[in-house]
């Protein structure tokens, strides 16, 4: 029988940030994910940030092979995985070396002393042993030989040294479950499912998990190491689950196709961090979803265009380098006015860049990165759960306006998880796609709806409506190839106008937090949402007139954006790139937007946004809001 975590007296905390770190082979991602699932099931709000190296198995013990997983959970609504960890779990010297600077002063440190061999210390670049040289003085430390205790706990299973050693992440997880009062059931269930083919290995892992837990219950914990509880968060009523951005986007696309009453075709070529979109959709064949693993990104988008020509909703997904390859074909979809959804899960660039790190540097590529005047719709998801809604919106706009739509997310959203209130399909109005079946007067394939400017969509196989389309310019009134100069200008304007009009069909610009006319507005897009929102809330709590506006529609920009931004004294645009949205806003709206960049492959911390906002605000003014009084 398990000892219930509820029987003991626990110190109450309102929020905790834990970072698990170890070798990339130590199973830290798995440990973090399991801790997060158990935490979500206990009713806390949470946010996670997995941070791992690009190498699958980097040489053990090296600094660049360190893999980390940060989870922030609380009894209240939270939006980011937290700035500095309160608790650091370091499985080896390299992990300690990389992550200790992030730990809060006075924070709790759990180290696996078993990995602090002289060879490992060398590899991490330690000249003296931090266990002994006073490095740990500012922290509360729990130093245990997790390696040895793990081996003991699984000795009865005769696993062999390597497999036995691998159980140490579950031992650690068991201990953490005890310290933070999490239930083990869901993890045990998960272990038995994962190792269903090898019940002995499954039970060994369960034993390690339980042993870590028992250790916490029975060992004398050192001074300063307490056991805690984080009460449930007050979340809006409903049914919840944890969700990652890529799963949410995959399911949003499926939901969108359902609402459009269309089969979904997903063509893709594997690339980090977009591959899990392909994996998620490949399992959903029963939903009229076909996935096609193409030979390259060009074939992936081309096949999706072929499927859209056939009357399905063609979707392709990739990251920045893949979008670069797809560019010519996206232009074909624009010229032929076919619906197409392109998902760009951004990562650090240029070129191969930082495959496993996050960045928002594909905005220019999305909005302007094609030959010719080639406008399309660009959407950006703000949170992992928001990816679901953006998936639906992308299908809606693509099919209603016969246009490619690009959805921007990033590695941070794709891999990060949050509790998500599950929506109900009946809350979404269906938007059935209209394929033309009857021959209208004067039919040609570029006849269009006078209001949306969408051209007719005819499925091959429809009698009487045979037609030819292609990338050559076509006559506005005939659909035939046309080299007429005036026609080309008219068609270019028409393609732009069609996209511009979509602004009438999406929400007007509104502030996420704050009121118009304040001192400063922070304008964000994409995954910086949570950090900006909390930073703005903190500055507002000090009485400053600061607002937050978050863009989900990047092209066309929402109506009323220019006048709203102009009402503020300052416009600050934090971005994980070298200043892209800021240039777009300046160019399109003639507002004095100012950049604030972070290009380290790491998301913004709330604290750095707060201090930058305060720096820009300067001393509080009693005069006109928005005018900065500087000494």
């Amino acid at each position, binding site marked *: 029988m398990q000892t219930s975590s509820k029987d003991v007296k626990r110190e109450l905390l309102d929020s905790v940030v834990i970072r698990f770190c170890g070798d990339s082979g130590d199973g830290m991602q798995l440990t973090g994910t399991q801790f997060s699932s158990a935490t979500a099931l206990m009713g806390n709000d949470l946010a996670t940030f997995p941070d791992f190296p690009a190498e699958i198995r980097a040489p053990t013990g090296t600094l660049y092979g360190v893999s980390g997983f940060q989870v922030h959970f609380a009894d209240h609504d939270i939006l980011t995985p937290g700035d500095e960890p309160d608790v650091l779990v370091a499985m080896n010297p390299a992990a300690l070396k990389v992550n200790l600077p992030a730990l809060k002063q006075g924070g709790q440190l759990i180290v696996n002393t078993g990995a602090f061999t002289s060879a490992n210390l060398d590899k991490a670049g330690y000249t003296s042993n931090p266990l002994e040289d006073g490095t740990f003085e500012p922290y509360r430390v729990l130093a245990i030989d997790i390696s040895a205790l793990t081996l003991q706990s699984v000795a009865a299973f005769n696993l062999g040294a390597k497999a036995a050693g691998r159980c140490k992440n579950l031992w650690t997880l068991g201990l953490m479950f005890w310290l933070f009062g999490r239930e083990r059931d869901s993890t045990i269930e998960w272990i038995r499912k994962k190792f269903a083919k090898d019940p002995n290995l499954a039970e060994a892992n369960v034993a390690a998990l339980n042993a870590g837990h028992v250790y916490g219950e029975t060992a004398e914990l050192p001074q300063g190491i307490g056991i805690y509880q984080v009460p449930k968060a007050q979340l809006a009523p409903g049914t919840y689950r944890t969700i990652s951005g890529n799963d949410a986007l995959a399911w949003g696309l499926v939901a969108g196709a359902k609402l459009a009453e269309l089969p979904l075709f997903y063509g893709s070529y594997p690339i980090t961090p977009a591959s899990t979109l392909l994996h998620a959709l490949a399992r959903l064949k029963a939903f009229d979803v076909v996935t*096609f693993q193409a030979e390259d990104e060009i074939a992936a988008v081309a096949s999706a265009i072929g499927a859209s020509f056939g009357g399905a909703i063609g979707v392709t997904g990739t990251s920045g380098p893949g979008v670069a390859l797809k560019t010519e074909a996206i232009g074909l979809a624009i010229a032929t006015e076919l619906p197409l959804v392109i998902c760009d899960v951004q990562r650090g660039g240029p070129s191969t860049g930082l495959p496993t790190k996050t960045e928002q540097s594909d905005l220019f590529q999305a909005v302007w990165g094609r030959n010719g005047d080639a406008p399309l719709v660009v959407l950006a998801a703000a949170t992992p759960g928001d990816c679901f809604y953006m998936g639906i919106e992308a299908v809606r706009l693509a099919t209603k306006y016969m246009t490619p739509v690009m959805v921007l997310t990033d590695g941070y959203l794709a891999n990060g998880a949050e509790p998500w209130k599950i929506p109900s399909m009946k809350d979404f109005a269906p938007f059935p796609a209209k394929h033309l079946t009857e021959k209208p007067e004067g039919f040609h394939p570029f006849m269009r709806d006078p209001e949306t400017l969408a051209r007719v969509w005819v499925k091959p196989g429809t009698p009487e409506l045979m037609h030819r389309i292609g990338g050559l310019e076509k006559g506005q009134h005939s659909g035939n190839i046309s080299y007429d100069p005036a026609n080309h200008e008219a068609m270019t304007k028409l393609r732009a106008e069609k996209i511009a009009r979509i602004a009438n069909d999406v929400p007007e610009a509104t502030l996420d937090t704050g009121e118009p006319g304040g001192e400063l507005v922070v304008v964000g897009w994409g995954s910086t949402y949570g950090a900006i929102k909390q930073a703005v809330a903190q500055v507002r709590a000090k009485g400053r007139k600061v607002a937050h506006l978050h863009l989900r529609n990047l092209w066309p920009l929402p109506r009323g954006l220019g006048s709203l931004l102009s009402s503020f004294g300052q416009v600050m645009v934090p971005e994980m790139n070298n200043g892209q949205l800021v240039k777009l806003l300046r160019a399109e709206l003639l507002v004095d937007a100012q950049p604030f960049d972070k290009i380290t492959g790491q998301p913004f911390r709330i604290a750095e946004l707060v201090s930058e906002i305060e720096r820009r605000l300067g001393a509080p003014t009693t005069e006109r809001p928005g005018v900065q009084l500087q000494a």
Partner: protein
Amino acid sequence: MTENPRVLTKKDFSSDQEVRWCPGCGDYAILAAMQRALPEIGATPESTVFVSGIGCSSRFPYYMSTYGFHTIHGRAPAIATGLKIARPELDVWVITGDGDALSIGGNHFLHLLRRNVNLQIILFNNQIYGLTKGQFSPTSAVGTVTPSSPVGSIDQPVCPARVALGANAKFVARGYDVSRELPELFKEAHAFPGTAFVEVLQNCPVFNDGVFDLITDRKSGPQHQLWLKHGEPMITADKKKGLRLNPKTLQVDVVTLGEGVSESELLVHDETNSTLAWLISDLPDVKALGVLYRDPSAPVYDDAVQAQVKMAKKAGASADVDALLHGGHTWKVS
């Protein structure tokens, strides 16, 4: 199949667009052969789709009254694959050129063939880049003088049929633009379950005039054409030469009949033998024409896709999005 009460003719497959190839271009004859073949196989304009890349040859879809998609350079096989997966009931033809299929689109060409998607791909091989005004192509002979190779090209060419066989193509055939057998070859390609690859030797009178004259000329042609017939000995059209296997070199020799060589010594065509197809596909003096290789037993890609979908649906997997969203661990907050 929809009922087709009216007997269709060549005219039913011709569009109202003016054909814009140069006078005397081999593409005209290929277009005519296609328009002749389609009514004979019971095709209808509404269920037929031509997908092409870029090049002179790729203008083809505009001249057909069927559905058509003139796409981008080299990518037609990928676009057609997506179309065929989404709409397996459609009759899809890919039209491509030697540059389109073997330079810029080489990758897609390879993968279309190895997947064995159920469509026909017709490669117009004029051994030149026609549309861009006559540069050498991946099939141009070494020494071809063009604006980009003023003293002769130095690139070794590839043999399209061999590329196809190397990619595991299951149907490989060859014809030439003005040949009377071309409609028949298209019909055979159409009947094949899987990717049917047909190379058509095509004269470009403007930039590469006469490269195939030896084979296609009325006088010299019969000595160099070898029309393959399954189960029959390999003999040139003039009945004077044949192909014999040299067991010492494992090569095929072109031998003259009568000079101590009898018909019984000649190789007999077996369409299902890919090794044989390889041996006869790139001979110096004789062009093997007709169906070089045909394996109708290979699994067809789009069928396999549909089978997996069917299996997923049969397995009783729910297609309810709400159920999908509630799958896994959930909890209630009240």
